[in-house]
């Protein structure tokens, strides 16, 4: 093997490496990408050409409508005069009525900063729950305080009311931790009684010492509206329905017949009734049962109904997650000597909830969009504002595309955000090796 040509005749020896050649033009950059992704075969090429043509037509027909859009006028007739027959959207309705779209038509103008601040703080409060691996767990304290703070910001009124509401929960928790060592039932019912007592006493104290002028002026529930109402209903109902859903799902699998049947009947009944029926019950039927003059807040009635509806669905999603776990996991927990709450908290639920994430997010997104149904019981959410007051005003009667387009964008941003977060969370929690 030593008789190679180079040894025999070493006239030329390359002393350095050849520089890398640029790849052929068809194997690099955008051309390669296009060949691989757009024109990899006859049928794909045809589809690509058709898609480009249709995108072109959509852009060509929509662009003048958007670019010519009128952003400043007092009514649709003025818009038409400005456009003089040319194609163009009348976006002036958005600039004139943006506050009604976001906050409803009765929320006082000078108080818009309050729901705005509550919205910003929502992210601060949600962050430690959503990104629990990256943020200090001390931030959860703010999350616990947030519901009371947000209530006070949005509804206003005496500050004592949310403070006593919070205090009731604290008292309930203290009683619970004292009694639960003796018996679960004692702790459970004892804490409920203690909390209710605190709220009752607190309510009397609040109404007794309530000053005429509060720091933040009170805004009644009837004045809530616009996208703010959708966000309030969506956030409250989703965050309440997840714990209720978990409890219902566990209850349905319980060995105790009464608990099991209560959960089964609740879930099956609520899932068997359309949401809109529940909303009508909340709005009109309850008014017959309550004594005249009693004012049970409409938003709270609606929140209860939507939460009940969503928890039934989430319970079934989580039950699917529980059923997907192999029996070995339950047996492993038993063999370690864990009792039921420990087994659930440490072994079963972390796995079951991880499996259920896509389903839970699906329910949450659907629920958020279903909050627009409240417009049929004459609450002015975003869609209710558009369909009712704005389209019924003599200035803007006839502006459809611009308004519903804006509503679609608002909902899309939120729903797409939720969906992206859930996909990130699934990757984050993936512990298996695929």
């Amino acid at each position, binding site marked *: 093997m030593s008789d190679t040509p180079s040894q025999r005749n070493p006239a030329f020896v390359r002393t350095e490496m050849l520089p890398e050649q640029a790849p052929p033009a068809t194997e690099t950059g955008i051309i390669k990408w296009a060949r691989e992704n757009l024109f990899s075969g006859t049928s794909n090429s045809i589809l690509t050409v058709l898609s480009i043509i249709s995108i072109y037509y959509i852009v060509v027909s929509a662009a003048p409508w958007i670019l010519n859009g009128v952003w400043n006028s007092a009514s*649709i*007739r003025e818009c*038409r005069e400005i456009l003089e027959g040319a194609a163009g959207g009348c976006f002036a309705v958005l600039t*004139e*009525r943006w506050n*009604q779209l976001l906050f409803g*038509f*009765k929320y006082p103008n000078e108080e818009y900063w309050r729901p705005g601040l509550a919205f910003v703080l929502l992210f601060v409060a949600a962050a430690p729950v959503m990104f629990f691996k990256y943020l200090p767990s001390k931030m959860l304290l703010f999350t616990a305080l947030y519901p009371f703070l947000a209530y006070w910001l949005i509804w206003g009124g005496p500050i004592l009311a949310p403070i006593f509401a919070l205090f009731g929960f604290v008292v309930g928790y203290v009683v619970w931790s004292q009694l639960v060592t003796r018996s679960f039932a004692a702790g459970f019912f004892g804490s409920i009684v203690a909390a209710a007592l605190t709220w009752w006493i607190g309510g009397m104290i609040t109404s007794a010492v309530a000053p005429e002028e509060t720091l933040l002026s009170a805004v009644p529930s*009837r004045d809530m509206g616009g996208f703010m109402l959708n966000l309030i209903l969506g956030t409250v109902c989703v965050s309440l329905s997840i714990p209720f859903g978990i409890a219902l799902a566990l209850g349905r699998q319980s060995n105790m017949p009464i608990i099991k049947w209560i959960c089964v009947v609740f879930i099956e009944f609520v899932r068997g009734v359309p949401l809109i029926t529940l909303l*009508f019950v909340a*709005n*009109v*039927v309850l*008014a*017959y049962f309550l004594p*005249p003059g009693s004012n049970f807040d409409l938003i709270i009635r609606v929140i209860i109904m939507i939460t009940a509806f969503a928890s039934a669905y989430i319970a079934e999603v989580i039950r699917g997650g529980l059923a997907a776990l192999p029996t070995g996991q339950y047996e492993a927990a038993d063999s370690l000597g864990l009792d039921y709450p420990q087994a659930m908290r440490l072994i079963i639920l972390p796995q079951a909830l991880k499996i259920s994430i896509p389903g839970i997010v699906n329910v949450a997104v659907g629920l958020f969009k279903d909050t627009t149904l409240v*417009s*049929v*019981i*004459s609450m*002015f959410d975003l869609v*209710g504002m558009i*369909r*009712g*007051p*704005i*389209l*019924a*005003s*003599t*200035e803007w*009667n*006839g502006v*459809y595309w611009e308004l519903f387009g804006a509503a679609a964008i608002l909902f899309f941003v939120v729903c797409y955000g939720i969906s992206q977060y859930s996909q990130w969370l699934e990757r984050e929690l993936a512990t298996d090796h695929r």
Partner: protein
Amino acid sequence: MKNSVFLGALTVAGLAAGAAAAGTLDDVKARGKLNCGVTTGLVGFAAPDANGEWGGFDVGVCRAVAAAVLGDPTAVEFVPTTGKTRFTALASGEIDMLARNTTWTFSRDVDLKFEFVGINYYDGQGFMVPKDLGVSSAKELDGATVCIQTGTTTELNLADFFRSNSMNYEPVPIETNAEAQQQYLAGACDVYTTDASGLAATRAAFEDPAGHVLLPEIVSKEPLGPLVRHGDNEWGDVVRWTLNALIAAEELGITSANISEMAAEATNNPEINRMMGTEGNLGEMLGLEADWAVKAISAGGNYGELFEKNIGENTPVGLARGLNAQWTDGGLLYSPPFR
């Protein structure tokens, strides 16, 4: 036997409910606010403006009643109701009166146990066609495609009208007025039919209103008026005579401009004096202040002024008085005398 006991129990329950409902006038006075049911939005009749202030023809009636009872036309809590929630809202006592372009029908009055106190707008079902169609009468519509809202009385009226004139039509069922507007403009139907006031408001929103005509035929009676619960006649009287005061004021030439002079001292016309409270004690009979009608009319003007300001010919809605003119001008508005 069992039946009669049951009926007896029902009667007692009914009486109890009646007793509980009685005294709306006192409730309103004690509350300091009138809860008035309106629509969630209908062009010209009720809609909040950019500042959230309610305005419109039906809203004007609410404000007049609030002014008559409480002396303040702004002391109204407007409760928006949909077509589905309006009657339960009134029956359950959530609202004191409903002024929501509601048609006065037998079954609503008798079976649903409401009391229509009068009529503030005489409406009727009409037809709108594009001018290019060259139709000048609804009798020429044989074979037309008609956009019609499903589940309404307009659907039945349409069928009756075409059958009695032995014509055929092709219905295009639609759900809402907004949908109808789009379908009609897109040419999915030759004719759009609904209440004439709704047609006028719809046409006013078109880019080219002059390209569409309302046909002269009106094929149904839709008397719209405010209503209250059965069983509280004192309150019903207050609302009824406030509405009558607005109508009579136009007939007698009392406007928001000259009312302060007329109310200041007795005029030559005794009926005006009785209305203004400078003579007689009509207000006391109603349980109101002597100048209740003065306040009601000052709130937004008399009937004619309310009409002109909200839905009249100079507004985008552009409705002619038509049937809603005073009886002296050939219309149907006729207030009983203030005596």
